[in-house]
Protein backbone atom coordinates (compact mmCIF):
# COMPACT_ATOMS: atom_id res chain seq x y z
CA UNK A 1 0.00 0.00 0.00
CA UNK A 2 1.49 3.35 -1.05
CA UNK A 3 1.40 6.55 1.03
CA UNK A 4 -1.14 8.04 -1.39
CA UNK A 5 -3.38 4.97 -0.99
CA UNK A 6 -3.15 5.34 2.77
CA UNK A 7 -4.19 8.99 2.51
CA UNK A 8 -7.12 8.01 0.27
CA UNK A 9 -8.28 5.42 2.82
CA UNK A 10 -8.19 8.03 5.59
CA UNK A 11 -10.13 10.58 3.52
CA UNK A 12 -12.76 8.02 2.46
CA UNK A 13 -13.29 6.84 6.05
CA UNK A 14 -13.68 10.42 7.35
CA UNK A 15 -16.16 11.26 4.56
CA UNK A 16 -18.40 8.39 5.67
CA UNK A 17 -19.30 10.16 8.91
CA UNK A 18 -22.73 11.60 8.28
CA UNK A 19 -24.55 13.80 10.76
CA UNK A 20 -28.07 12.42 10.92
CA UNK A 21 -30.44 15.18 12.00
CA UNK A 22 -33.67 13.26 11.40
CA UNK A 23 -33.98 12.04 15.03
CA UNK A 24 -33.66 15.65 16.27
CA UNK A 25 -36.36 16.73 13.81
CA UNK A 26 -38.58 13.89 15.03
CA UNK A 27 -38.05 14.92 18.68
CA UNK A 28 -39.02 18.54 17.92
CA UNK A 29 -42.16 17.47 16.02
CA UNK A 30 -43.14 14.93 18.69
CA UNK A 31 -42.84 17.42 21.57
CA UNK A 32 -44.58 20.19 19.62
CA UNK A 33 -47.53 17.88 18.90
CA UNK A 34 -47.71 16.74 22.54
CA UNK A 35 -47.64 20.27 23.99
CA UNK A 36 -50.02 21.75 21.39
CA UNK A 37 -52.54 18.87 21.83
CA UNK A 38 -52.35 19.12 25.62
CA UNK A 39 -52.79 22.92 25.59
CA UNK A 40 -55.75 22.76 23.21
CA UNK A 41 -57.40 19.97 25.22
CA UNK A 42 -56.92 21.99 28.40
CA UNK A 43 -58.27 25.12 26.69
CA UNK A 44 -61.43 23.49 25.30
CA UNK A 45 -62.12 21.12 28.22
CA UNK A 46 -61.00 23.00 31.35
CA UNK A 47 -63.57 21.24 33.52
CA UNK A 48 -62.04 17.85 32.78
CA UNK A 49 -58.42 18.94 33.30
CA UNK A 50 -59.17 21.07 36.35
CA UNK A 51 -61.58 18.55 37.87
CA UNK A 52 -59.73 18.66 41.20
CA UNK A 53 -56.87 20.68 42.75
CA UNK A 54 -54.24 18.16 41.64
CA UNK A 55 -55.77 16.95 38.35
CA UNK A 56 -54.21 19.73 36.23
CA UNK A 57 -50.84 19.08 37.88
CA UNK A 58 -51.10 15.35 37.19
CA UNK A 59 -52.17 16.12 33.61
CA UNK A 60 -49.21 18.46 32.94
CA UNK A 61 -46.59 16.29 34.66
CA UNK A 62 -47.58 12.70 33.86
CA UNK A 63 -48.06 13.07 30.09
CA UNK A 64 -44.71 14.88 29.50
CA UNK A 65 -42.99 12.26 31.70
CA UNK A 66 -44.47 9.50 29.53
CA UNK A 67 -43.28 11.50 26.52
CA UNK A 68 -39.76 11.65 28.00
CA UNK A 69 -39.74 7.87 28.45
CA UNK A 70 -40.91 7.36 24.87
CA UNK A 71 -38.40 9.80 23.33
CA UNK A 72 -35.55 8.29 25.39
CA UNK A 73 -36.52 4.86 23.99
CA UNK A 74 -36.78 6.29 20.46
CA UNK A 75 -33.39 8.03 20.71
CA UNK A 76 -31.65 4.88 21.99
CA UNK A 77 -33.25 2.85 19.19
CA UNK A 78 -32.30 5.34 16.45
CA UNK A 79 -28.77 5.57 17.94
CA UNK A 80 -28.35 1.80 17.61
CA UNK A 81 -29.69 1.92 14.05
CA UNK A 82 -27.26 4.67 12.99
CA UNK A 83 -24.45 2.82 14.77
CA UNK A 84 -22.29 5.72 15.88
CA UNK A 85 -22.40 8.99 17.76
CA UNK A 86 -20.51 12.06 16.58
CA UNK A 87 -19.22 14.85 18.84
CA UNK A 88 -22.05 17.04 17.53
CA UNK A 89 -24.69 14.40 18.40
CA UNK A 90 -23.28 14.24 21.92
CA UNK A 91 -23.39 18.02 22.39
CA UNK A 92 -27.03 18.17 21.20
CA UNK A 93 -27.97 15.24 23.45
CA UNK A 94 -26.40 16.92 26.50
CA UNK A 95 -28.09 20.30 25.78
CA UNK A 96 -31.57 18.72 25.56
CA UNK A 97 -30.96 16.51 28.60
CA UNK A 98 -30.09 19.66 30.58
CA UNK A 99 -33.28 21.30 29.25
CA UNK A 100 -35.25 18.25 30.47
CA UNK A 101 -33.75 18.65 33.95
CA UNK A 102 -34.41 22.40 33.89
CA UNK A 103 -38.04 21.67 32.93
CA UNK A 104 -38.46 19.37 35.95
CA UNK A 105 -36.81 21.99 38.19
CA UNK A 106 -39.01 24.83 36.82
CA UNK A 107 -42.21 22.80 37.29
CA UNK A 108 -41.12 21.96 40.85
CA UNK A 109 -40.40 25.61 41.70
CA UNK A 110 -43.70 26.76 40.15
CA UNK A 111 -45.53 24.27 42.36
CA UNK A 112 -43.79 25.53 45.48
CA UNK A 113 -44.58 29.18 44.73
CA UNK A 114 -47.91 28.52 42.99
CA UNK A 115 -47.01 30.33 39.75
CA UNK A 116 -47.61 29.32 36.13
CA UNK A 117 -44.35 27.97 34.59
CA UNK A 118 -45.38 28.43 30.92
CA UNK A 119 -43.43 31.64 30.24
CA UNK A 120 -40.28 30.42 32.03
CA UNK A 121 -40.34 27.13 30.11
CA UNK A 122 -40.93 28.90 26.78
CA UNK A 123 -38.06 31.31 27.52
CA UNK A 124 -35.74 28.39 28.31
CA UNK A 125 -36.95 26.52 25.22
CA UNK A 126 -36.25 29.55 23.05
CA UNK A 127 -32.64 29.69 24.31
CA UNK A 128 -32.11 25.95 23.79
CA UNK A 129 -33.57 26.17 20.26
CA UNK A 130 -31.22 29.06 19.39
CA UNK A 131 -28.23 27.09 20.73
CA UNK A 132 -29.27 23.98 18.79
CA UNK A 133 -29.83 25.93 15.58
CA UNK A 134 -26.44 27.64 15.85
CA UNK A 135 -24.60 24.40 16.64
CA UNK A 136 -26.09 22.38 13.77
CA UNK A 137 -26.08 25.47 11.49
CA UNK A 138 -29.77 25.16 10.66
CA UNK A 139 -31.21 28.67 10.37
CA UNK A 140 -34.90 27.74 10.64
CA UNK A 141 -34.38 26.45 14.18
CA UNK A 142 -32.33 29.51 15.18
CA UNK A 143 -35.03 31.83 13.78
CA UNK A 144 -37.74 29.76 15.50
CA UNK A 145 -35.88 30.09 18.81
CA UNK A 146 -35.43 33.87 18.40
CA UNK A 147 -39.13 34.21 17.52
CA UNK A 148 -40.11 32.18 20.57
CA UNK A 149 -37.87 34.29 22.80
CA UNK A 150 -39.35 37.58 21.49
CA UNK A 151 -42.88 36.17 21.83
CA UNK A 152 -42.20 35.11 25.44
CA UNK A 153 -40.85 38.56 26.33
CA UNK A 154 -44.01 40.06 24.75
CA UNK A 155 -46.20 37.86 27.00
CA UNK A 156 -44.37 39.15 30.10
CA UNK A 157 -45.57 42.68 29.23
CA UNK A 158 -49.10 41.47 28.45
CA UNK A 159 -50.14 39.48 31.52
CA UNK A 160 -53.79 39.19 30.40
CA UNK A 161 -52.99 36.68 27.64
CA UNK A 162 -54.28 33.13 27.92
CA UNK A 163 -51.14 31.07 28.58
CA UNK A 164 -52.57 27.94 26.95
CA UNK A 165 -52.99 29.80 23.66
CA UNK A 166 -49.56 31.38 24.19
CA UNK A 167 -48.21 27.82 24.39
CA UNK A 168 -49.95 26.80 21.15
CA UNK A 169 -48.76 29.83 19.17
CA UNK A 170 -45.22 29.86 20.59
CA UNK A 171 -44.62 26.13 20.11
CA UNK A 172 -46.20 26.07 16.63
CA UNK A 173 -43.97 28.79 15.22
CA UNK A 174 -40.91 28.27 17.39
CA UNK A 175 -40.62 24.47 17.34
CA UNK A 176 -43.14 22.66 15.12
CA UNK A 177 -42.46 24.44 11.84
CA UNK A 178 -38.62 24.43 12.27
CA UNK A 179 -38.84 20.76 13.38
CA UNK A 180 -40.80 19.83 10.24
CA UNK A 181 -38.34 21.67 7.99
CA UNK A 182 -35.43 19.84 9.69
CA UNK A 183 -37.12 16.43 9.45
CA UNK A 184 -37.94 16.77 5.75
CA UNK A 185 -34.69 18.36 4.62
CA UNK A 186 -32.15 16.36 2.62
CA UNK A 187 -29.55 14.52 4.68
CA UNK A 188 -26.45 16.52 5.60
CA UNK A 189 -22.98 15.23 5.22
Amino acid sequence: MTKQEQLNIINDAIKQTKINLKPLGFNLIFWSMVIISMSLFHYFFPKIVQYSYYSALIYWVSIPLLGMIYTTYYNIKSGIKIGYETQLDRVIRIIWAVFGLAWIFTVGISLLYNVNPVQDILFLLGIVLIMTGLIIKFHNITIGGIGLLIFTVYTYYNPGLNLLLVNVIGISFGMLIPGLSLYFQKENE
Partner: protein
Amino acid sequence: MNKEIEKLLFNPIRLKTISFLMTVETCNFKALLEITDSTKGNLSIQLKKLNEAGLIKIEKYFQKSYPTTDYSITKKGKSSFEEFYKQLISYKKVK
Protein backbone atom coordinates in the same frame (compact mmCIF):
# COMPACT_ATOMS: atom_id res chain seq x y z
CA MET B 1 7.29 7.55 14.76
CA ASN B 2 6.80 4.22 16.48
CA LYS B 3 7.46 1.47 13.93
CA GLU B 4 4.96 -0.80 15.66
CA ILE B 5 2.15 1.73 15.12
CA GLU B 6 3.22 2.32 11.52
CA LYS B 7 3.12 -1.42 10.91
CA LEU B 8 -0.25 -1.69 12.60
CA LEU B 9 -1.80 1.06 10.48
CA PHE B 10 -0.40 -0.40 7.30
CA ASN B 11 -3.40 -2.75 7.22
CA PRO B 12 -6.29 -1.01 5.33
CA ILE B 13 -9.04 -2.30 7.67
CA ARG B 14 -7.19 -1.09 10.76
CA LEU B 15 -6.43 2.25 9.08
CA LYS B 16 -10.10 2.70 8.04
CA THR B 17 -11.24 1.83 11.57
CA ILE B 18 -8.89 4.27 13.27
CA SER B 19 -9.66 7.05 10.75
CA PHE B 20 -13.40 6.63 11.26
CA LEU B 21 -13.12 6.44 15.05
CA MET B 22 -11.21 9.75 14.96
CA THR B 23 -14.42 11.47 13.76
CA VAL B 24 -16.93 9.89 16.16
CA GLU B 25 -17.37 9.52 19.93
CA THR B 26 -18.44 5.87 19.86
CA CYS B 27 -19.35 3.35 17.22
CA ASN B 28 -20.87 -0.14 17.20
CA PHE B 29 -19.66 -3.26 15.39
CA LYS B 30 -22.37 -3.12 12.70
CA ALA B 31 -21.39 0.40 11.63
CA LEU B 32 -17.69 -0.54 11.54
CA LEU B 33 -18.54 -3.51 9.31
CA GLU B 34 -20.19 -1.13 6.83
CA ILE B 35 -17.39 1.43 6.99
CA THR B 36 -14.54 -1.05 6.59
CA ASP B 37 -16.40 -3.27 4.12
CA SER B 38 -14.89 -6.38 5.68
CA THR B 39 -16.11 -9.68 7.11
CA LYS B 40 -17.13 -10.14 10.76
CA GLY B 41 -14.23 -12.52 11.49
CA ASN B 42 -11.57 -10.35 9.89
CA LEU B 43 -12.84 -7.17 11.51
CA SER B 44 -12.92 -8.84 14.94
CA ILE B 45 -9.27 -9.87 14.58
CA GLN B 46 -8.18 -6.37 13.46
CA LEU B 47 -10.14 -4.71 16.28
CA LYS B 48 -8.53 -7.04 18.79
CA LYS B 49 -5.07 -6.05 17.51
CA LEU B 50 -5.90 -2.33 17.75
CA ASN B 51 -7.21 -2.87 21.27
CA GLU B 52 -4.11 -4.80 22.33
CA ALA B 53 -1.94 -1.94 21.06
CA GLY B 54 -3.99 0.48 23.22
CA LEU B 55 -5.27 2.47 20.23
CA ILE B 56 -8.96 1.72 20.74
CA LYS B 57 -11.22 1.02 23.70
CA ILE B 58 -13.81 -1.76 23.63
CA GLU B 59 -16.84 -1.53 25.92
CA LYS B 60 -19.19 -4.48 26.22
CA TYR B 61 -22.61 -4.14 27.87
CA PHE B 62 -26.18 -5.35 27.67
CA GLN B 63 -28.85 -3.27 25.99
CA LYS B 64 -32.41 -4.63 26.23
CA SER B 65 -30.83 -8.00 27.19
CA TYR B 66 -28.76 -8.09 23.97
CA PRO B 67 -24.96 -7.98 24.21
CA THR B 68 -23.69 -4.76 22.64
CA THR B 69 -20.14 -3.61 21.96
CA ASP B 70 -19.05 0.01 21.55
CA TYR B 71 -15.70 1.05 20.12
CA SER B 72 -13.93 4.36 20.68
CA ILE B 73 -10.45 5.74 20.11
CA THR B 74 -8.09 6.19 23.06
CA LYS B 75 -5.79 9.16 23.78
CA LYS B 76 -2.87 7.05 22.61
CA GLY B 77 -4.84 6.17 19.46
CA LYS B 78 -5.53 9.84 18.72
CA SER B 79 -1.93 10.97 19.17
CA SER B 80 -0.61 7.99 17.19
CA PHE B 81 -3.00 8.67 14.33
CA GLU B 82 -2.17 12.39 14.30
CA GLU B 83 1.54 11.62 14.13
CA PHE B 84 0.96 9.03 11.42
CA TYR B 85 -1.17 11.48 9.41
CA LYS B 86 1.42 14.26 9.75
CA GLN B 87 4.05 11.91 8.35
CA LEU B 88 1.87 11.03 5.39
CA ILE B 89 1.17 14.71 4.66
CA SER B 90 4.86 15.66 4.94
CA TYR B 91 5.71 12.83 2.56
CA LYS B 92 3.16 14.21 0.07
CA LYS B 93 4.63 17.74 0.36
CA VAL B 94 8.18 16.47 -0.21
CA LYS B 95 7.03 14.49 -3.24
